[in-house]
């Protein structure tokens, strides 16, 4: 029995014996990375992004540790007013918030008005009508109003209770409201929103930036016919692999850097309590992004191969750009069961699943399953892209369609 080995002579050898070109992808990847890192525009963009992240973090930290001091003017002769203002200041201290109150005793109403207009006092507490009035030059600060209001209410309540022959404690018995968190790790709504927005944005910036990088690097070689010289030296599969690996290393490295700076910022900020949950989510994000970007990089490489000149890129990369933008908008606006669905849909799950992990409502197996789906999609994208890449790369003259590329013989 004989074995017929079919070897069509008209296909350029894509499965060669090892002639030393096996490791070529490493050379290609190395060149991609070095070229990128030496690129001034890229380095400046990276530094600016890092500076923006650091500045934002510094701003939020400053904002949340800043203490505002308000001066409350009261007539020194009015015992209830003095007691209320003192109680309000104690209340502010007890809350430990960013508001502090100081007491300024004045002689009379005229002195109080003068202090307000001179800026020596921020608010003036005095009796008026059948209650109390807190006056400011403009509308008084809401936190100050709340603190003073509570203190006045307690003072008056105590006085009324005494008059009625009872105590404030008896009056308010059973009316206390305490709060408790069933899941102490659960995120506040705001933190969650900002975190998922940040994830979407990291995905968007990383995917578009590094995606266009691989596309333009492919078309640069195609336009200059360097690809023909390269193709005679190494199999195109090696070239594609090298480019994907090179741009993925850059994209993932960039996101790692952003994540590290972001986490460092969170660690020194008042929301440091969210650090463990954020770290888990970010680690998932980096893993998901790396796998997902393999697929995107392959598709963007085809976009480069379909173009004949760099001017064509705008057009040939449109489907990929739409996909990335769609993921960006969908994932940071989605919530509830829609978000749950998205967290399993390839590419969207790069953002959606880490966001769900952050909110703490996922079981351990969910990100794993989602990652497997993403990996399967990446493999499929790589296989299809490899064929289209080979089909399109050697065709010159005008833009090529996906269909033509996939049908081409070589």
């Amino acid at each position, binding site marked *: 029995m004989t074995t017929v080995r079919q070897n069509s002579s008209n296909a350029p050898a894509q499965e060669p014996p090892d002639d030393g070109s096996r490791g070529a992808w490493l050379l290609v990847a190395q060149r991609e990375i070095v070229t990128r890192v030496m690129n001034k525009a890229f380095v400046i963009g990276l530094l600016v992004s890092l500076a923006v992240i650091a500045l934002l973090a510094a701003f939020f930290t400053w904002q949340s540790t800043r203490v505002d001091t308000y001066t409350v003017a009261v007539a020194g002769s009015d015992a209830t007013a003095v007691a209320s203002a003192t109680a309000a200041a104690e209340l502010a201290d007890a809350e430990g918030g960013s508001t502090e109150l100081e007491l300024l005793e004045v002689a009379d109403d005229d002195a109080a008005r003068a202090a307000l207009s001179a800026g020596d006092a921020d608010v003036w507490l005095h009796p008026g009508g059948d209650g109390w009035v807190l006056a400011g030059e403009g509308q008084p600060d809401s936190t100050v109003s709340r603190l003073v209001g509570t203190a006045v209410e307690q003072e008056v309540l105590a006085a009324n209770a005494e008059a009625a022959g009872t105590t404030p404690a008896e009056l308010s018995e059973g009316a206390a409201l305490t709060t408790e968190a069933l899941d102490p790790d659960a995120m506040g709504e705001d933190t969650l929103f900002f975190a998922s927005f940040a994830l979407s944005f990291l995905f968007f910036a990383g995917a578009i930036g590094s995606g266009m990088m691989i596309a333009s690097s492919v078309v640069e070689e195609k336009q200059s016919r360097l690809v023909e010289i390269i193709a*005679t030296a190494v199999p195109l599969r090696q070239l594609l692999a090298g480019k994907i690996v090179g741009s993925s290393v850059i994209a993932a490295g960039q996101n790692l850097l952003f994540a590290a700076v972001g986490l460092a910022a969170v660690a020194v900020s008042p929301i440091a309590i969210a650090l463990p949950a954020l770290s888990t989510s970010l680690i998932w994000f980096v893993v998901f992004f790396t796998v997902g970007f393999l697929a995107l990089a392959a598709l963007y490489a085809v976009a480069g191969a379909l173009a004949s000149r760099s001017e064509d890129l705008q057009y040939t990369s449109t489907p990929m750009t739409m996909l990335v933008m769609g993921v960006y908008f969908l994932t940071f606006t989605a919530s509830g069961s829609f978000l749950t669905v998205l967290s399993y849909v390839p590419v969207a799950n790069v953002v959606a699943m880490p966001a769900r992990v952050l909110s703490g409502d996922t079981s351990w197996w969910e990100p794993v399953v989602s990652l497997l789906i993403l990996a399967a999609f990446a493999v499929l994208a790589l296989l299809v892209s490899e064929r289209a890449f080979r089909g399109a790369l050697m065709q010159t003259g005008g833009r090529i369609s996906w269909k033509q590329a996939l049908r081409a013989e070589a």
Partner: protein
Amino acid sequence: MTTLEVHDLTRTFGDRRAVDAVSFQAPGGMLTGFVGSNGAGKTTTMRMMMGVLSITSGEVRFGGAPVTRADRRTFGYMPEERGLYPKQPAIDQLVYLARLRGIPAAAARTEAMEHLDRLGLAERAKDHVEKLSLGNQQRVQITAALMGRPRALILDEPFSGLDPAAVDGMVDLLREHTARGVPVLFSSHQLDLVERLCERLVILRTGEVVADGTPAELQEAGTVRHRLVLDSDAGWVRGVPGVHAVDVDGPTALVELADDATTQRLLATALERGQVRELSPVRPSLAQIYREVTA
């Protein structure tokens, strides 16, 4: 001496046969010129020879055996309408392209520097390629093809855009490679250049080889014309049977003669009419042959 040859090489694009059963040889140690008008199929043929374009049918042979991917890896190749990485230093991309062909980095760097030095580009080795003049960029491109002692050279329009001095410099480089037995195939539009440089010539017309051989062989195979110089007006030769007068200018006529008998008849008639100062065969120039075969 290793010969590079193609047999019945054919490539179709849809219904169109861009290259139709093309066969020729580029023997080792020789410069073979590849000529033809735009769209004749030169580039398509060369791309198939390099394996850049798949072959519809036919075969490329190197040293008598079907060419392999490993063979092609040792060929030097200059594609048409080529360029380089604009924002990378010349030396870096020469080393990169050489390393892709399996040449160790250190050896590639040494060789690239030697080449650049010879071309007078040593001190510009670290300049970005986009800062070099077009002529210098072309020199860097040919260097990329010549790195690592290639076993064959396939060059698509290597001289386009070069001034005569630069052409001579590049030809000297190519001669060094033919001297060690390497086949060099290059395409060109410049017939005078091809005539001056080539030991062999292949002429392509609409995808088919219409002439192939040494310049002398082609000239012999071409239509031989005769010059007739009389002492009086030669207009009467137009009436002689078997004689095709290409050009008559006073006493001088350029004629094509059907056979030897016609030659004798023409001579006899001329002698009857007066004195014959000259009757001699005229070897056609390559340009003339080219026009004939591609007409």
